[in-house]
């Protein structure tokens, strides 16, 4: 328990868990000191004074049907209920651990037999088994305890078995075996200490459950026998007259409720503290549109004739106090019918740029803080959600990487294509189907009629990518944003898909923003290329010029790392170092630490993107151009 302090602090950061802990502590303390309190004896009857209301003289919570003091019975009853619940949890954990550790440690046949047995027991709705046990042994508190413990053994056995099977395969157990220690000794000294924390957590989270189950059996008259009080039997006895004297029933009922609730709250706190994802906020639901929080007005359009104009776009991720500047001041212009490549390593911000166009960056944590995205002159970032949504898929369509995860796994591909049409246009199903099948033929899917009814997992990667392309085309968009559409494919399929995209572009006059990390792909399809590094554009220009004479050292390294097709074995130059983390960008050029041409002034301050003819560059010491 070295880390108990911070861990408890984590649990209590959840205020409700703290509340649960306090309530539970008060109840437990009251139970512990019950024998010391000046209470009336719990089992002494006083029938003339039966059913006294709460706050009566001498009876703070009133009396029950035999005139017994409810407060006294409540405290003694809670004491018994908690004790039995705790005991049942311990017994269940004990036997469960024994079975689980044996099965997990020995594995093989022992494991098989024990776990089949556990499965059998779990085939029962739990109370049936408990009822059968009580039926055989006869009603009574001890037998109820045995029954409740027995039905909960499988829960512990299963959890502990999984854990010990994992541990048994670890080196330190092997080491102990090789040193000649006996099985019992290994289990007791090596295995058990490692599963004990889990057992402790499991016991503490199931006690509430055990208390409730024993109370249930007592309520049915199968647990504690008169005159002995526990919470369940108090409720059960109160049932006979609960219409006339509801307080006799409400007092123990509320107490059970409080106990179970506080244990639940505490359990939630424990679970949250143990699950790192909850702490980092990674389970937040992404909003339909990226959060837009621009500090100034949108920049004025400069190229209204362009299909798509991205102006000084900045997108960042805000995780707690950290700010990751994924995209900083990126400006791109995509002409009509043009294919513009956006290239960079993973983490350079190219995909975030692409997703920012129609507000598809997950928020939280994504925020667009600056700039504009203009589709034929209209700023998409200023549009209300309804108008933006109407644009998505109709005028701007995406082709994503890895269609196995980007297509819905449970709908047929045809259904998904038809949906893409019908969210924008009213169209009879048969007509939509015919259109989609025609498109499947266009992207050269064999047997399109039967493929229409296939599920994504039934197709090959190349086929799925074609589906993704066909789905982007269903509404005849002006702009296609292709986010690494060929990365997941092998080389031949990649070439086919690229040829297809190029052909479609020419046939349909599409404007394509093509995101990739591969200069080879850029060379095959893009008219112009922009190179991104650490969230910024570092170089831009016509593909042929940039490929022939890269000016930025980063670009030249990227090109050099490319194996030239047909050139035989060429040395692969990888770029030393890693891209910087975008929450701690160095001043000046972010590539400087990895750059062989870097000088002192590179890291001095911001370097502007300078335009020269069709090319642009953000570098103080560019490669010597021929």
């Amino acid at each position, binding site marked *: 328990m070295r880390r108990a302090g911070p861990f408890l602090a984590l649990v209590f950061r959840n205020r409700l868990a703290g509340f649960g802990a306090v309530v539970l502590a008060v109840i437990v303390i009251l139970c512990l000191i019950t024998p010391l309190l000046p209470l009336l004896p719990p089992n002494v009857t006083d029938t003339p004074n039966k059913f006294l209301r709460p706050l009566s003289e001498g009876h703070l919570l009133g009396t029950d049907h035999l005139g017994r003091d409810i407060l006294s019975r409540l405290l003694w009853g809670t004491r018994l209920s908690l004790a039995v619940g705790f005991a049942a949890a311990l017994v269940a954990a004990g036997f469960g651990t024994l079975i689980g550790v044996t099965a997990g440690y020995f594995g093989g046949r022992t494991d098989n037999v024990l776990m089949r047995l556990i499965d059998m027991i779990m*085939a029962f709705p739990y109370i049936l088994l408990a009822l059968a046990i009580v039926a055989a*042994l006869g009603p009574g508190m001890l037998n109820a305890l045995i029954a409740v413990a027995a039905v909960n053994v499988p829960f512990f056995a299963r959890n502990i078995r999984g854990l010990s099977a994992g541990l048994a395969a670890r080196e330190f157990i092997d080491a102990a075996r090789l040193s000649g220690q006996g099985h019992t000794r290994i289990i007791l000294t090596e295995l058990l200490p490692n599963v004990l924390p889990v057992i402790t957590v499991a016991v503490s989270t199931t006690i509430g459950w055990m208390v409730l189950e024993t109370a249930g059996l007592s309520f049915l008259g199968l647990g504690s026998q008169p005159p002995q009080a526990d919470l369940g039997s108090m409720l059960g006895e109160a049932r006979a007259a609960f219409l006339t004297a509801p307080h006799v029933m409400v007092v123990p009922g509320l107490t059970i409720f409080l106990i179970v609730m506080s244990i639940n709250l505490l359990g939630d706190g424990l679970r949250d503290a143990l699950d790192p994802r909850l702490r980092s906020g990674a389970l937040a639901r992404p909003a339909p549109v990226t959060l837009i929080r621009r500090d100034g007005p949108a920049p004025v359009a400069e190229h209204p004739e362009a299909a798509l104009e991205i102006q000084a776009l900045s997108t960042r991720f805000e995780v707690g106090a950290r700010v990751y500047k994924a995209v900083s001041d990126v400006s791109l212009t995509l002409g009509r019918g043009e294919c513009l490549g956006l290239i960079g390593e993973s983490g350079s911000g190219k995909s975030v740029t692409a997703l920012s166009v129609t507000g598809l960056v997950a928020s939280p944590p994504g925020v667009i803080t600056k700039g504009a995205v203009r589709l034929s002159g209209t700023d998409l970032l200023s549009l209300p959600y309804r108008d933006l949504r109407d644009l998505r898929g109709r005028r701007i369509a995406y082709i994503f990487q890895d269609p196995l995860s980007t297509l819905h796994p*449970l709908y047929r591909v045809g259904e998904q294509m038809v949906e*893409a049409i019908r969210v924008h246009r009213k169209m009879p199903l048969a007509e939509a189907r015919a259109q989609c099948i025609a498109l499947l033929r266009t992207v050269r899917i064999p047997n399109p009629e039967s493929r229409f009814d296939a599920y994504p997992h039934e197709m090959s990667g190349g086929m799925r990518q074609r589906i993704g392309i066909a789905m982007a085309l269903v509404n005849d968009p002006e702009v296609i944003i292709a986010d690494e559409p060929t990365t997941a494919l092998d080389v031949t399929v990649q070439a086919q898909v690229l040829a297809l995209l190029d052909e479609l572009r020419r046939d349909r006059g599409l404007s394509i923003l093509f995101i990739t990390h591969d200069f080879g792909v850029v060379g095959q399809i893009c008219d112009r290329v922009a190179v991104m590094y650490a969230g910024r554009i570092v170089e831009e220009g016509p593909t042929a010029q940039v490929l022939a004479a890269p000016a930025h050292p980063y670009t030249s390294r990227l090109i050099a790392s490319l194996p030239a097709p047909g050139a035989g074995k060429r040395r692969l130059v990888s770029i030393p170092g890693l891209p910087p983390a975008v929450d701690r960008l160095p001043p000046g050029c972010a590539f400087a630490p990895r750059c062989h041409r870097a000088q002192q002034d590179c890291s001095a301050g911001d370097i502007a993107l300078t335009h020269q003819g069709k090319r642009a560059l953000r570098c103080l010491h560019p490669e010597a151009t021929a």
Partner: protein
Amino acid sequence: MGRYILYRLISAVPVVLGITVIVFFIMSLIPGDPATAILGAYASPENVAKLNRDLGLDRPMVARYFIWLGNLLTGDFGRSFSLNRPVLDEITERFSATLVLAGVSLVLCAVIGIAAGVVSAARQFGWQDKAITFAVLIGISVPSFFLGMLLILTFAVNLRWLPVSGMYEIYGGRTLWDLARHLVLPATALAAVATGVVARLSRSAMLEVLRQDFIRTARAKGVAERGVIWRHALRAAMVSIIPVLGIQAGFVLSGAVYVEVVFQWPGVGRMLVEAILKRDLLLVQGGVTFVAACYVLFNILVDVAQSLIDPRIKA
């Protein structure tokens, strides 16, 4: 699909056999002579000996098990001494009442629980989410037998909206309307905990799914948020919600015992409790075996439903 169902049915046979073994084993734990336990302490020795012979109790345990099993397979569950009628007749009659109650509760908990979970996830951290989370906490913490009594007190006694207990009016035509009125309170009491659990799980399953890539694809297609949530996300979340519904069915069936007692519902749960208190062991033995076997069948149904919703499961 037919093959899959057949395969699941065949693989359920050993489970059901295991259930009979466990029940038989537990029942053989009865301290002392079973015949005395059945007939009571004041039975004459001749009667005890006769019953032992009639029930085959003088044979060894393994032989007794197979005799019992053989009888079960021919539909002979024995005769209840306290009710003086065949155990199977009583069980089927009572079990149908339980099925109505538990079935309605399960549907309630599935519909309300999933809807609440989806709304909670869609409005994460909003007031709806907070209200639902609070209601869920109350729901999963309140014992069904306590909630049942509170409901009776409020809606049957004070407000007089609904009947206090039972399944039908004593002098009535046993109409569906009458049954529905009698069902509202017990079904609510029974569904409360399961609804909370289902809502909780649905919420986290939805949050998990909403971060997946195919949700982003749906948004990129221009699907409205309502369609994203209910058509895309919920469909995928159902894959993890359905098994939990199966587990909850077991808890609902268990909770039915308490609710049947509180509401005087003529179901199999109340029958078992009464049988235990009257030491009618054949009735207990038969009832437990029968209900457990039905539960196994139900779980097969859940798996079949799962394979229908998820085409990736090879049926």
